[in-house]
């Protein structure tokens, strides 16, 4: 009797485990489904893309769409231009944010000056300030400086609006360094600048990567400022520009699978960072989760 109920319990535990994992797997599948479908479109031959209903899973796989996009890359300037713009805009923004917040994180955590904490909280509040409220004045300002439809016209506001989180992370990073280290360096005669450059800076490099990641990902996909401040291909990032390349009917070379391939290519940088730098990503999420 006792043994039967034991196996029964074991069986019920097993069933519960199976249901538990089945739900988790189903959820994970739903999270990935749109992406997987897009992959399925990108690698299917054109004949399979323009049939109703379009099969969820392609019967044949082909690389010709990728080939077409790459051809277009080398021939048509617009697609190259869009990717180039995205790389420059995102790269420069990350550079500015990392530079500014490394310096400020050090000052807010290690130096003393009047107004320090007030300024720090004023900057941190920026994490929750609505971007849309600054939009009209920002547009007017940029057009006054002739920066509409230029790369700096996006880089500068992006930098401003992505400082708050980085500043917060960097201050925590510098605060985590033991005081003894600072004292030892000061006794050895190191001034503020040497203390920063030679002692502190190397110790916060992992947080630096975190800040870079958390600036890169949102800026690469940003759309509202990009849409508002650019209307020409010269300065447009790919997140907006791909819209110009919307597929039409089944004819012509900019077909649906080709567009899907181009979209997937734009996913590559954030995906590389996400899967490649998982360790830093998770660390940053737990530290700065409040922002997202």
């Amino acid at each position, binding site marked *: 009797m006792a043994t039967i109920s034991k196996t029964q319990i074991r069986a019920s535990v097993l069933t519960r485990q199976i249901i*538990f994992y089945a739900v*988790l797997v189903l*959820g*994970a599948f*739903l*999270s*990935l489904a*749109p*992406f997987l*479908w897009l992959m399925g479109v990108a690698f299917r031959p054109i004949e399979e893309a323009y049939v*109703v209903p379009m099969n*969820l899973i392609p019967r044949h796989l082909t690389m010709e769409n990728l080939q077409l996009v790459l051809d277009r890359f080398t021939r048509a300037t617009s697609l190259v231009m869009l990717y180039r713009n995205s790389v420059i805009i995102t790269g420069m923004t990350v550079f500015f944010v990392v530079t*500014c917040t490394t*310096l*400020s994180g050090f*000052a807010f955590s290690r*130096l*003393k000056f*009047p107004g*320090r904490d007030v300024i720090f909280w004023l*900057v941190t509040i*920026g994490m*929750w300030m*609505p971007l*849309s*409220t*600054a*939009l*009209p*004045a*920002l*547009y007017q*300002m940029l*057009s006054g400086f002739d920066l509409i439809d230029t790369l700096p016209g996006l880089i*500068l*506001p992006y*930098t*401003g609006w992505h*400082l*708050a989180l980085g500043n917060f992370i960097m201050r925590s990073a510098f605060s985590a360094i033991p005081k003894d280290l600072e004292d030892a360096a000061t006794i050895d005669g190191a001034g*503020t600048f040497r203390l*920063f450059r030679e002692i502190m800076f190397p110790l916060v490099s992992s947080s630096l990567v975190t800040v870079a990641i958390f600036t890169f990902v949102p800026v690469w*996909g*940003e*759309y*509202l400022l990009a*849409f508002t401040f650019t209307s020409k291909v010269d300065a447009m990032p790919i*997140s907006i520009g*791909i819209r110009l390349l919307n597929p039409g009917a089944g004819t012509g070379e900019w077909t649906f699978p080709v*567009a*899907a391939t181009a*979209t997937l290519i*734009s996913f590559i940088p*954030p*995906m590389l960072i*996400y899967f490649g730098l*998982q360790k830093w990503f998770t660390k940053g999420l737990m530290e700065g*989760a*409040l922002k*997202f």
Partner: protein
Amino acid sequence: MRISAQRPSSKPLDLLRAIWRGKAGYLFILPLLFFYTVFVLYPSARTIWMMFMRYEFLRPDRLQFIGLANIIEWAQDPRVWETFGVALKFTLMYVPASTLIALIVAILLDRVRRPSVASVFRTLYYFPVVLPAGMLYIAWQWIFDPTWGPLNHMLINVLHLPVPWTRWLGDPNTSLLSLVLMSVWRLMGATMILFLVGLNNIPQELNEAARIDGANEWQLLRHVTLPLLAPIFLVIMVLRLQVLGLIAEPLFMTEGGPVRSTMTYGLQAYYITFRDGNWRMGYGATWFVMLSIFSTLVAFLGWRWFRNRID
């Protein structure tokens, strides 16, 4: 007499001395302050100032101080209530749905024993958040497409479900719902992480103590886990309140249509500022600022209400 003569002269002097001693600090925060004041604080403040001006971007010659006229017009504008209703409808569908799903997923993930398995699932669930939003809007337009789209195909031909609507973004009855569906999919992972952080902070001993006292899983959830997650709920509510100002999703996917069914408050404000007539920036600024005031007020009241309930 002597004291009062000395005090005002020495205090500012002390402050000046302290500022001078802290000069390295100011130097280090200077780049940050430059970007932050010029591109965040100043435009935000200037938008508030624009609220009191007749300012049309394409007709700068008509610039004039008009006091409260914009605010009075805003208060009488029927579009305010209409579009705010749309935004509110979106918020009331999106926030509970995404919060509930994220909570369930987080609780399930928290129960996965092996850290490596949990981290694989977490990575997959969070994946949509890192994909570039601008591109996802296009992908989802394809997904919702009534003829080619995989959503209808999946629901009708594969699962054989009796779907009452098939036009998704093209149908005024379902356009807003479609935007909600996409947003829940796209941002569920972000809310999930917040819950996971909260669950992580619950001491394991507390759960064990409750189990020893004979609590079953449901009671544990109801009486230990959820009450301890209360602060996280608050954070999520405050963060998600931002969707009241939703602009990008309807702007890119539906342009407010069909028949204004997705014309949210934020999108209407955006169109007033950047599209209508001579780009009525002064009036558009009024729309944006009024929403900010409202959101801040609601967040503040919500926070106080919540804090009182926790105490």
